[in-house]
């Protein structure tokens, strides 16, 4: 490559340098446009959610916030997207005029068919993610990873990577892979960001009231501080 470059300079005296540089710039520009603008468009297919879901409306109607529908089961597992049976509790029949609700009741409730929701945050099969560890133990907000989805009035378009089959949310909206907020990317490095750097203290003092008041036999016994810090020796923490 460098040889050609040098060569271009060398022959510039002959007066052919102009077109050569021009073509170089043309090539450069074309590839930049292709790589940054066209390629991402080609890479992702756009899919609409089966039902346009209004989070705001639902959050207002329920009592316990996100956990009203996205709850923990007794065995510690997380329910994720609600199943039809759960929705039916309120939507046995259409409660209003909203065409989305009508569609939901007619197509799904009436036929007992589960809604094939497209999950923005769906991680690959090899990933084990413990909601309990993050929400219950580390007391993180849903928004840290899921962003302001609870404030959405419409379901946004689900973009699927044509090669990997993943949601675009994993790589992040920004094709360069850069992010501003914690919830904008969900690749392994983003998990690692927290897991390798933060040494979160759960010493009795640092915990919020009333937890700090509760006896914590384990920590007392061992003098250990709970850590997020999982260095390179912890593949199984997040993989299965």
């Amino acid at each position, binding site marked *: 490559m460098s040889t050609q470059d040098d060569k271009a300079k060398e022959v510039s005296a002959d007066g052919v340098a102009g077109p050569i540089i021009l073509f170089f710039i043309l090539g450069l520009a074309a590839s930049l446009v292709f790589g940054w603008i066209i390629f991402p468009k080609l890479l992702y297919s756009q899919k609409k959610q089966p039902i346009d879901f209004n989070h705001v409306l639902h959050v207002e109607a329920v009592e316990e916030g996100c956990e009203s529908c996205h709850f923990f089961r*007794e*065995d510690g597992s997380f329910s994720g997207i609600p199943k039809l049976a759960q929705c039916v509790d309120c939507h046995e029949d259409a409660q209003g005029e909203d065409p989305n609700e009508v569609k939901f009741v007619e197509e799904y409730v009436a036929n007992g068919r589960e809604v094939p929701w497209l999950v923005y945050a769906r991680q690959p099969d*090899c990933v084990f993610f413990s*909601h*309990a560890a993050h929400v219950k133990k580390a007391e993180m907000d849903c928004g840290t990873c899921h962003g302001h989805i609870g404030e959405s009035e419409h379901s946004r378009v689900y973009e699927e990577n044509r090669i990997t089959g993943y949601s675009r949310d994993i790589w992040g909206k920004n094709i360069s892979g850069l992010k501003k907020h914690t919830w904008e990317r969900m690749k392994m490095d983003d998990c690692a960001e927290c897991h390798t750097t933060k040494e979160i203290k759960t010493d009795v003092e640092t915990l919020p009231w009333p937890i700090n008041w509760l006896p914590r036999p384990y920590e007392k016994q061992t003098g*250990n501080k709970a850590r997020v810090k999982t260095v*390179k*020796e912890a593949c*199984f923490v997040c993989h299965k």
Partner: protein
Amino acid sequence: MKEEGKHKKAKKYGMVINLDECTGCGACMVACMAENNVPFKEDESNKLDSIAWMRVYKLTNGKPYPEAEICYLPRPCMHCEGEHGHAPCVSVCPATATDYNHETGIVSQIYTRCFGCRYCMVACPYHARYFNWWDPVWPEESTKYLSPNVSPRMRGVVEKCSFCFHRYQLAMDKAYLEGRTVLEEDEYQTSCAQACPAGAITFGDLNNPEHKVHQLAKPDNKHGGRPGNPNVFRLLERLGTNPKVYYMSSREWVRQAGDNYINNEDLAKNYRH
């Protein structure tokens, strides 16, 4: 100081397998296959390419009829600690697809990280690591019984026993929900230990004196986890792999079959100094 504190806290999950009780029935093998989505193919009689995270070996005392004796020896992954976590297989993996977790003592294997160089298989003297030579194929309906807790492996990667780590994860989830961070002994048990009809497999935290495995094996952590119980031995103890699977047998020849000795060697002297 710090090291000591860390040591106290770290768990070291391990097994004690009572070879007197093991009947060689193979339930552990199947319990493992069913738990961990282990694939199968039409012909599995070539044991050189048959994936069995848990494999039951048949040992013989080498004597002629009618003095012949046999003993079965189930062999999961030994989850070697080596020296300070340098398990034979872990340190050789070029892509960090396997690691030694100091908090649980479990050697992991990340299938999606593994690119199939098989160096770890060469490194493991126990043949506990298996390669997916073939695409795993389940008969049409059979995919229904696959467990979501363990991801099915793709062709071209290495897999091995994980001490059913997903069961640890699920148990921890429950504990977190209940505001605990410590598991009871019976909350986390491997599939093989649970299934063994003879009750020959004991699983638990070797570092916890209250756990049965500790009481049976009496591991001496100052000397690479060497068993304190004279009837207990480990496979290839002399290699220094520091495995976490202990075997128990009342028969001398079985205990000797666990390791290599050169003729007329003073066994006791050689590695119990």
